[in-house]
C-alpha cells in the first residue's frame, strides 16, 4: 500500500479519514515498511468495515493484516447494539476461536535434546493431525451439547486437564451465552470425530525454547526464563466452527436486504445484533468458541500424556490460552463513557492491560499474555497487553506473521523434503503427514514475525516479553 493514502498519526499508526459511506475512520497499525508491503485489499476492506452500521470509534487493522474474506485478517471492529450495531460471521472468520495456547514444561534445552527425536515421534504418533484425521473421542448428541455449552470446563470435568487450567484460559475456559441448539446438525456431525485433532494448514503443535527475554519483570510474572522449554498449540474449532461460519455467512448475506443493510461486498454479510439471525449466530458462535477451547484442552491432555512417558519429570501447567477469531461482549470506555460493545477480532488477539478484572490474579499486574505464533522456522513471541492498547484498538494486538506468498507459489518454490532437511540442519524437527503441506507452510512464505511484533510493541498495542524458537514442530 502507498503510505501517501493515509494520514500518519505516529510511526506505527496510519489513518484513513471517513469518506463516502464510512461512518468512522479506518486505522491501520504497522511500520512504514509493513504498510508498504501490505496488500491493497487491506485498505479496501478496512474502509468497507468502517461503513457498517453501529461501528464505534474506528475500523482497525493490526500490523500482520492481510486480505481476508470481507473483514481483513488482523481486523478489529466494535459495534454498539444501541446504535444499530451488527454482528458479522465474516468478521469472526470460518475458524471460530482459532487460537494459541502455551504450556510450561519446567524443562530446559538440556533435558529435551537427548530425547528430541523420540519426543517428536511420540507427539506425531499420538496427536491426530492432518486432513481426514480423527480423534479418539466420539461424542453422542448429549455429550456434544454438553461440550458446546461447557468448553474447556467440560473437558476438565471429563478428566482431560485440571481445574487450575481454567483460570489461564480466556472466559475461564467456558464462553457464556453459548446455545448448542443454534448449532446445526451438519455442524455437529462434522465435529463428531474431530475432537482432539490439530487440523491442517497453519495449525501446529511446537516444542519451543525461550531464547530471549525483553521484559524481565513481566517474564517473571509469566514464569518464563531464557532456556526454558514450552509447548505451543495453534488450532481452533475444527469442522464445527467452519460449518457454523459457512451457514451463517449465507443466512446473513441473504437477510441483509431485509435488515436494510447495503453490502458493498457479500462477504461483509452481517445482521443487526438484536435481530433473530444475529442472536442465533451469537449463540452458535459462542458454542463454537467452547468447541475450540475444549479441543485445545483435549490436545493439552494428549501432550501431557506424551511428556509423562518421554520426560516424566516435566510439569505442564498452562501459561495462557488466547483466541484470535471471536466476537465478544466487552465494556470499553469511549469518550469517558463506559459502553457495552460487540468486539470482533478476526486474526487479532485480545490484549487486556494490567489491572483488568478479567485476568487471573497472578497475571493481573503484568497484563494479559498475548501469544503470537510465527512460522515453523522463525519463532514465536509472548507479548503482554498494555494499558495504552485500550484506547488504541479496544485492547487488541496482532496474532501472527501472515502469509506473503500463496500456497500454490510456495509449493512450486520449495519441496517439502527440502524444508524438513533445512530445518533439521538447524536443529528443528518437523513431523507432518504431508510433505506438500510442509512446502506450503515453508518459513519464507510468511512475513517476518519479528517485524510484526516489533511494530505492535512500538505502537503500544502490546509489550514484547519473550521470543520462542521451535525444537519440534508437528504440522497438520
Amino acid at each position, binding site marked *: 500500500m502507498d503510505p501517501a493514502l493515509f494520514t500518519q498519526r505516529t510511526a506505527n499508526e496510519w489513518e484513513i479519514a471517513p469518506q463516502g459511506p464510512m461512518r468512522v475512520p479506518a486505522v491501520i497499525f504497522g511500520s512504514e515498511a509493513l504498510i508498504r508491503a501490505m496488500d491493497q485489499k487491506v485498505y479496501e476492506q478496512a474502509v468497507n468495515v468502517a461503513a457498517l452500521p453501529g461501528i464505534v470509534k474506528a475500523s482497525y487493522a493490526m500490523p500482520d493484516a492481510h486480505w481476508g*474474506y*470481507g473483514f481483513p485478517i488482523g481486523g478489529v471492529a466494535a459495534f454498539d447494539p444501541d446504535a444499530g450495531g451488527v454482528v458479522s460471521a465474516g468478521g469472526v472468520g*470460518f*475458524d471460530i476461536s482459532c487460537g494459541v495456547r502455551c504450556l510450561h514444561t519446567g524443562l530446559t534445552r538440556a533435558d529435551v535434546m537427548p530425547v528430541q527425536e523420540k519426543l517428536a515421534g511420540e507427539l506425531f504418533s499420538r496427536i491426530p493431525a*492432518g*486432513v*481426514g484425521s*480423527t480423534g479418539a473421542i466420539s461424542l453422542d448428541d448429549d455429550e456434544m451439547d454438553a461440550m458446546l455449552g461447557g468448553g474447556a470446563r467440560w473437558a476438565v470435568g471429563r478428566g482431560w486437564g485440571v481445574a487450575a487450567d481454567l483460570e489461564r484460559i480466556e472466559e475461564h475456559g467456558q464462553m457464556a451465552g453459548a446455545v448448542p441448539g443454534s448449532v446445526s446438525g*451438519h455442524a455437529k*456431525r*462434522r465435529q463428531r470425530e474431530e475432537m482432539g485433532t490439530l*487440523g*491442517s*494448514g497453519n495449525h501446529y503443535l511446537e516444542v519451543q525454547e525461550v531464547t530471549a527475554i525483553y521484559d524481565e519483570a513481566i517474564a517473571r510474572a509469566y514464569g518464563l526464563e531464557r532456556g526454558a522449554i514450552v509447548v505451543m498449540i495453534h488450532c481452533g474449532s475444527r*469442522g464445527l466452527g*467452519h*460449518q457454523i*461460519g*459457512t451457514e451463517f*455467512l*449465507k443466512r446473513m*448475506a*441473504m437477510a441483509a436486504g431485509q435488515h436494510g443493510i447495503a453490502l458493498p*461486498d*457479500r*462477504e461483509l*454479510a452481517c445482521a443487526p445484533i438484536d435481530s433473530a439471525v444475529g442472536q442465533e449466530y451469537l449463540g452458535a458462535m459462542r458454542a463454537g468458541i467452547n468447541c475450540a477451547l475444549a479441543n485445545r484442552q483435549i490436545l493439552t491432555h494428549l501432550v501431557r500424556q506424551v511428556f509423562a512417558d518421554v520426560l516424566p519429570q516435566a510439569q505442564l501447567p498452562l501459561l495462557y490460552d488466547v483466541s484470535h477469531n471471536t466476537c465478544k461482549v466487552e465494556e470499553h470506555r469511549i469518550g469517558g463513557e463506559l459502553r457495552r460493545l460487540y468486539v470482533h477480532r478476526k486474526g487479532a488477539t485480545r490484549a487486556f492491560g494490567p489491572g483488568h478484572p478479567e485476568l487471573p490474579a497472578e497475571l493481573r499486574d503484568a497484563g494479559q499474555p498475548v501469544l503470537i505464533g510465527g512460522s515453523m522456522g522463525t519463532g514465536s513471541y509472548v507479548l503482554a497487553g498494555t494499558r495504552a492498547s485500550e484506547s488504541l484498538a479496544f485492547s487488541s494486538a496482532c496474532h501472527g506473521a501472515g502469509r506473503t506468498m*500463496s*500456497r*500454490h507459489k510456495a*509449493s512450486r518454490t520449495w519441496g517439502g523434503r527440502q524444508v524438513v532437511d533445512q530445518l533439521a540442519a538447524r536443529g528443528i524437527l518437523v513431523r507432518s*503427514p*504431508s*510433505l*506438500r*503441506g510442509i512446502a*506450503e507452510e515453508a518459513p519464507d512464505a510468511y512475513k517476518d514475525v519479528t517485524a510484526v511484533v516489533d511494530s505492535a510493541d512500538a505502537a503500544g498495542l502490546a509489550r514484547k516479553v519473550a521470543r520462542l524458537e521451535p525444537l519440534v514442530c508437528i504440522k497438520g
Partner: protein
Amino acid sequence: MGVRGFGQTPGAAFEQAALAMTAVVTDPAGVEPRQAVVVECEAPDAELLLAEWLNALVYEMATRRMLFGRFAVRIEGNRLHGEAWGERIDPARHHPAVEVKGATYTSLLVAPVPDGWIAQTVVDV
C-alpha cells in the same frame, strides 16, 4: 486459495471448479472414483449456488473422510443436482496438503465468457 472452472455450460464450469477445489487438497488424478456421492442444493442465484455446491462437497469430504476426483452437475433454475466420485482419504497415497474449511464469497463469480462459462470463488483453508 482461488478456484476457477471453465466449461461450455454453467454446470460444466461448476464441475471444473469442484475439481480445482480438490487440487487445493491433493492431485485429483490420484483420486480413484470408487464411490459416488449425490449432492443436492439450491440458492437464489447462480453465484450463491456455486458456493452452496462447493460447501456441500466440503461437508461430504469432511464427514465421509473422502476426496473426490470426478464430478457431474445438472443445474435447473435455482437447483443443482450433482454427483461426485471419489474414495476415502489415504494420507500415504494422497499426501493431502490442507483441508478446505469452506467456500467463501470472495471473488465469487459465475458469468458467461467468450468460450462458455466461468465459475470461481476463494476457498478458505
